[in-house]
């Protein structure tokens, strides 16, 4: 399983893939950083990293499907999955190894963005605990999105379609909260209540403001786990209909 994990991480850096996406991520991060700084003098908005995280996620969430689109779709397309299907490794192990691989790449990208808080730390002051909390929220929400992206990739053998499905899912993840707040849904309190349970944005906003809560942590991790289990089921199911 470790071999597969290692290979997954390596393969991101063997193609220009990880570099391009990290570049894009840093570009977005730096743009919002600069924008926040330019606003710092205004009396209304105070400069804070929580804002940056928040804004960033709106853009960044759409890059996650690009990271995950190849995980299963590409392997189906290139018929490389026979390698791990015929090897002494179980499908749950494969799914977790791949998930950890993407999560590692994602973590590396986040580490690159540490550059900005460092600059801020040198030139000003940063509330470190709040920053850590922000990063933690960012990472946890990312894990949920990675799991969802992988599930979409397992559904098809075309990476592009996997990416498109992934983007659609990300929109759902992102705007579920807004949707819950519409008049229509609010008029049905029962439905609104259920949807709020699954709203990830509200939980993230807690983290981004430096509020750490065990409930939110458990929420993110359990959602990730559930989606990964679905992914295992999909991969296992598709194994039955292989040509």
């Amino acid at each position, binding site marked *: 399983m470790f*071999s597969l994990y290692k*290979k997954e991480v390596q393969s991101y850096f*063997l193609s220009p893939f990880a570099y391009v996406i990290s570049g894009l991520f840093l570009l977005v991060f730096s743009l919002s950083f600069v924008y926040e700084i330019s606003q710092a003098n205004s009396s209304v908005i105070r400069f804070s990293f929580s804002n940056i995280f928040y804004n960033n996620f709106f853009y960044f969430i759409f890059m996650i499907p690009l990271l995950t689109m190849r995980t299963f779709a590409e392997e189906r397309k290139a018929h*490389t999955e*026979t390698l791990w299907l015929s090897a002494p490794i179980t499908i749950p192990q494969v799914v977790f190894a791949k998930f950890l691989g993407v999560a590692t790449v994602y973590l590396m990208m986040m580490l690159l963005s540490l550059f900005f808080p460092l600059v801020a730390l040198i030139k000003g002051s940063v509330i470190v605990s709040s920053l850590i909390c922000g990063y933690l929220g960012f990472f946890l929400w990312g894990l949920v999105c990675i799991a969802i992206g992988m599930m979409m990739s397992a559904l098809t053998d075309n990476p592009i379609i996997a990416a498109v499905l992934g983007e659609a899912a990300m929109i759902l993840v992102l705007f579920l909260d807004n949707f819950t707040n519409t008049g229509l849904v609010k008029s049905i309190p029962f439905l609104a209540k259920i949807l709020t349970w699954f709203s990830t944005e509200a939980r993230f906003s807690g983290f981004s403001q430096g509020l750490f809560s065990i409930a939110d942590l458990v929420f993110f991790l359990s959602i990730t786990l559930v989606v990964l289990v679905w992914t295992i089921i999909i991969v296992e199911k598709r*194994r039955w209909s292989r040509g």
Partner: protein
Amino acid sequence: MVEIKNLTKFYGSQPAVQDLSFTVGDHEVLGFLGPNGAGKSTTMNMITGCLPSTSGTVLVDGYDIAKDPMEVKRRIGYLPELPPVYPEMRVRDYLTFAAGLKQVPRAERDKQVANAMERLHITDVQKRIIGNLSKGYRQRVGFAQALLGKPKFLILDEPTVGLDPAQVMEVRRLIQDLAQDHTIIFSTHILAEVTAVCERVVIISKGKIRAEDSIANLEQKFGGKKQLRMKIEGEITTVTNIINSTEGVTGIDEAEYESAGVNVFTINVTGDDVRKQLITRLLAENCMVLEVSDVHASLEEVFVRLTSPSRADAMADLGKELDAKREAEQSAANAEAEPEGSTEADADGKEDA
């Protein structure tokens, strides 16, 4: 030992493989033969555990693929139809990764990878990116992958497809070499390959076993008719008369014009000594015999007979009939048994024409 029992696979209501049963003994090379789309790859995928079967079992060394997949997979090296190589990886890295996946102990990985590369003659491309290699090399990298983990059984799905003739020869030699310490099942639709490396073949068509036997037995059983090819110089009617009136000749299958006064005859015969008699009689009538040769019903013919859709069932029936007859006649005189069998096949041959 690999035991396959009543293996069946349905895609929806479409059967891909039906009720397949055969056994492969240790250190045996089994050719798995069939036209494209016969279910060869499906079967191999099921043996290696890539594809679950609808019903039936595969036992590898007594371990059931459905119940003990890990034990089975540890014993099998699989080269699928399309080599499962990652184009962005380097040959050596890929093989090291595959060795890790097959749970080769860390200390042994380098050694095994080096061995596999040497066997497949890819040591000189070990630093290259797989995506930049030619099809032949990629195939060999896939093959090397199958050898990692020292599996007892090798399942090779069309290992020579896409290779040039020299490479094909090399792979055949490699299979023969590997056969010394491995049990090999390999599929192909190229018959020369089977004749070259296998002792036993299983012929399948449309997901069903058509025949399972040694090559020699198959040729004997389904090849059926004996023919002589003779190039004769002389007046055609005289020659035809002589041939037809010779004892042991059952008819002229074909007469081809070669040049003025020279024709090539394909003659159906029953006995072995017809040749002598024919030549003597022809020479007596001043007809020159320029060439004589035996026509062997090759495996190729057997294959076409068994797998062409319209005749497949008829031939399978005929095979059973012949078997039954042979058994019945075993108690009777042996001399009688053989010509009987041949006439049966002859009759069938004529129907075909």
